[in-house]
Structures are given as C-alpha cells and as structure tokens.
C-alpha cells in the first residue's frame, strides 16, 4: 500500500472526528444573549453589596488598608 493511501485514510479519520465534535457542539441548547445578559446583570446586582472591591470597605475592616492610629510600644 502506498503512503499516500494511508495519509488519505488518516485525513478522512481526522475529518470524521472533527465533524463528530462539531455535531456535539452544535447540538447544545442555547439561550438568547438578552436572557444571558439579564442573568449576568442580576447576579451582579444581587452580590454587589458584598463585593469589597466594588463597594470599597472602610480601612478598619480591610486587613490590607492601613489603619490610622499607631501604638508605640
């Protein structure tokens, strides 16, 4: 058998795998961007108050922010 036939067989096998994969990916159920976006917005809204970097939290509650008073020992 010539090498050319083997290559052709491999290419066909590869193409079959690609088509199979694309079929799997194409078959998933999709929702509309409007719905997806609305859900992202809702999540942000629901969790905003508990987001320290978004809300900014007082220095006294953030271990990384410097507290104003220092005590000299």
């Amino acid at each position, binding site marked *: 058998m010539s090498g050319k036939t083997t290559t052709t067989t491999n290419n066909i096998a590869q193409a079959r795998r690609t088509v199979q*994969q694309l079929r*799997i*990916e194409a078959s*998933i159920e*999709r*929702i*509309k*961007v*409007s*719905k*997806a*976006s*609305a*859900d*992202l*917005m809702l*999540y*942000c809204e*629901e*969790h*905003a108050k*508990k*987001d*320290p*970097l*978004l809300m*900014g*939290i007082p220095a006294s509650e*953030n*271990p*990384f*922010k*410097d507290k104003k008073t220092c005590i000299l020992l």
Partner: protein
Amino acid sequence: HHDPTHFDGGLSNRQLFAVHQVAERVEALGQFVMKTRRTLKGHGNKVLCMDWCKDKRRIVSSSQDGKVIVWDSFTTNKEHAVTMPCTWVMACAYAPSGCAIACGGLDNKCSVYPLTFEKNENMAAKKKSVAMHTNYLSACSFTNSDMQILTASGDGTCALWDVESGQLLQSFHGHGADVLCLDLAPSETGNTFVSGGCDKKAMVWDMRSGQCVQSFETHDSDINSVRYYPSGDAFASGSDDATCRLYDLRADREVAIYSKESIIFGASSVDFSLSGRLLFAGYNDYTINVWDVLKGARVSILFGHENRVSTLRVSPDGTAFCSGSWDHTLRIWA
C-alpha cells in the same frame, strides 16, 4: 408571539449581541481608588504565577529563577521557600487545605510540596512528582480537594491526575497548539473547566468524559488567561490581541469585548471581583486595567509595576487582588 425565554425590556426590536446593549440602563460606576497596599519583594527574577490560599492571607508565587515562595500577605513575611530544579516555574497553585502547594514549568512536570511548620523545614525532600507532560507545564490547579490536580501544557493537552498515586485519570485533547491557561468551574456548577491556548481557542471540558463540550474562537491571538464569572455561567479571557472578552456558556457565544484603541499590548491575566461586576486585567505594558463587565467601559487604570504584569488573582474573600510581574515583585491592591 410569546417567547418565555426572551427578556423584553423594550429591546425586542433590536438584535442583541452584547451585554452592554442589555445593560444600557445600568448605573455607571463611579471613580475607583485602588492602591498598592503591600509589595512582596524577594524573587530574584520575573514572577510568573501566583495563587491565594483559602485563608485569604497566604500567597504562593513562582519565578523564572526557579524559586517558589509562600508569603503571608498581611505582614509580607516569607513563610516557605523552595528552589525547583528547573528555571521558568510557570505554574503554581495552593492546595484547598492550605497544607501543600503544586508547581512546575520547564521540567514538564507538576510537583506537590507539603508545607510543614518545622523549624528547619526541607521542602525539597518531601517533593512528590505528580504530572508528566511532554512539554512545559503552563498552568495547574487543585480540584476541590488536595487529591486531584488539573494541568495544562505546551504539549497541547490538559490532564487530570491523582496526587497520591501520580496516576493519569483523564486527558483532554483538542487544542491545536500549546495550552496556556485553565480555570475550574465554581463547584456549584459541576465538573467542567475551561482552557485557553495558542490556537486562539477557549475550550470547555467535561472532566469525567474528557470531552470538549463547547469551544470559542474569536480572539486574534494566544489566549493567556481564562477565568470563570462567579456564577459559573460565563468566563473571561485575556489575550495577546490586547483584548479581554466575555463568553456566555448558555448563549454559547462571545457577549462582550473589553478593548480600547490605546491598549495595544497583550493581556496576560484576568480575574473578576466577587460580584462579577469588575474585571481586573494585567497587561504586558506594565498596567492593570479595571473594566466594568456589564457596560464594557474601563473604570480605572493602575500603575506601579515596572515591567509586564504576568499574573493576577483576586483574594478568596474579594477584599484585595494580587498581581505578579516581570519586575520581580508582587503587589497587593485594595
């Protein structure tokens, strides 16, 4: 016609392709003041990767010079340090228990080091080789326990390993080139993870079957970083094409691009704030841009690093984020 899945805020006459269109009426964010609160100095060369411990305080970082350091970010003290037998330690991760770290790079492996609190700890002696790839290790992450590690490699594959035995549990084939990054879905959303690579693709995988379930190819260059949105319904990516993008998994498409004409250098690493409203992205032009995820606008630009920002993670409780850079330092911002 009545379509119960269609959210109609008076927008049904327009075709909607992006989040910012739906979020038109969302209030814009005000000014942000974020500053460097701590600088972690000690690496002798480029910082390539970092990860937070679940205790929201400790950090592991790895460097081009082969050193892996565990820091207490509150005090900036170094608690542990080990020198790897290879240079370019491109990946490191903290175990969920806080009792071990994983790392690897040009050695093509991912190794786990238990952390002890002995006085003269010899970390190198307790090293356990877990993963073996045929090219460099680019990323690693423990799953929800210390027992399994997920890896990504320059050999184009990702793999799931049992830490105790070193056994390969599942491999993930599909990327057409080096895989550069991965992120595990938040535990509530099930057993999937997303990976990004030099083939410009982001791929979502089923961890049990090894199957790629979704793929996205809209970037124009390598994807350096991927991170799930906190709800698990979307993920962000950062790329050498100088953009960050948001992909929604249920809509199965890109839903936002975060870019500006003035930003021409690649984005190396991205992470969300706790609510998902902010996206922090580190760039090769030494800056960190903060994006309003919903409105698509940049809300802040942070200067401080003196070389490329290579890695960036928000702390587990969202109070701060850490960036690592080729300038040898890590910075904590809040």
